[in-house]
């Protein structure tokens, strides 16, 4: 299994990003119901691993940080979820 995606928050982030072109930091925090600090730490690990891309910009003079899933992240997610499902299937 993918070590990085064993964390529920990181798995949630990747699942959230799966069907989206990008999601803003604040929206991810709201959707996953985690604190900004906690989410920031998890996102850093995903960015460092190349699973997620970070893009910082200013919109109407306000900072906007948004995240996008990479191909590597998508592959890791698919493989990890398949392994979770096979674990559950073998347990049943």
């Amino acid at each position: 299994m993918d070590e990085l995606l064993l964390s529920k928050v990181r798995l949630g982030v990747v699942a959230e990003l799966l069907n989206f072109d990008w999601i803003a930091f604040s929206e991810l925090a709201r959707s996953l119901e985690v604190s900004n600090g906690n989410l920031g730490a998890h996102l850093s690990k995903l960015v460092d691993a190349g699973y997620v891309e970070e893009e910082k910009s200013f919109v109407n003079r306000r900072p906007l940080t948004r995240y996008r899933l990479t191909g590597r992240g998508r592959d890791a997610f698919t493989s990890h979820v398949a392994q979770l499902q096979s674990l559950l299937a073998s347990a049943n």
Partner: protein
Amino acid sequence: MERIGTSEARDHIEMVNRILAESQQRLCTGGEYFLVWGIGSAFVTILFALENNGLVPGAALWSVPVVLALCALFSIYRSRATRAALARSSLLQREFFNVLWLTIGLAFVANAAAYRIFAGVASAAVWSIAEAIVLLYIGMHGNRRAQIAGVLVVVSLIAANFVAPPLAGYVLGAGMLVGYGGFGVGELLARE
């Protein structure tokens, strides 16, 4: 290798399924753009038809670039204003914008660079086709109003082919107004 128990794995899978179920592929169209461009394109088409039939002086055609510029300015202003409030953008949304810009871009090229081929009412018909493609693409993703609006534009295109030539521009303009602009009104009312 496995550092996760079955109950935790089940919990993770349930979370993933819930997130994926909630992230349904919705296409946000922005009714105001369709309303403004529906009115703008219908105005231009009908004005050309009126001028062609000798009902308005040729000088009235100077309003065409002004109207198109106003539509473009509105689109730029509105997209900037809404961009700040946008928290997420779906892959489907990105695909929609690709289709939108490709269609409008090709229609513009046909009008600007192939004006000898697409002269007169053919030029308006190119825009009708572009509008129908955009509406039917939205309709393909489950928007019933867009399906009806797209069919209306196509029907206006076919009808324009069979009416008396001086009326063809009016029919195309009506299709743009009712189809494209009407879809915009429908989206705005649905949002309320």
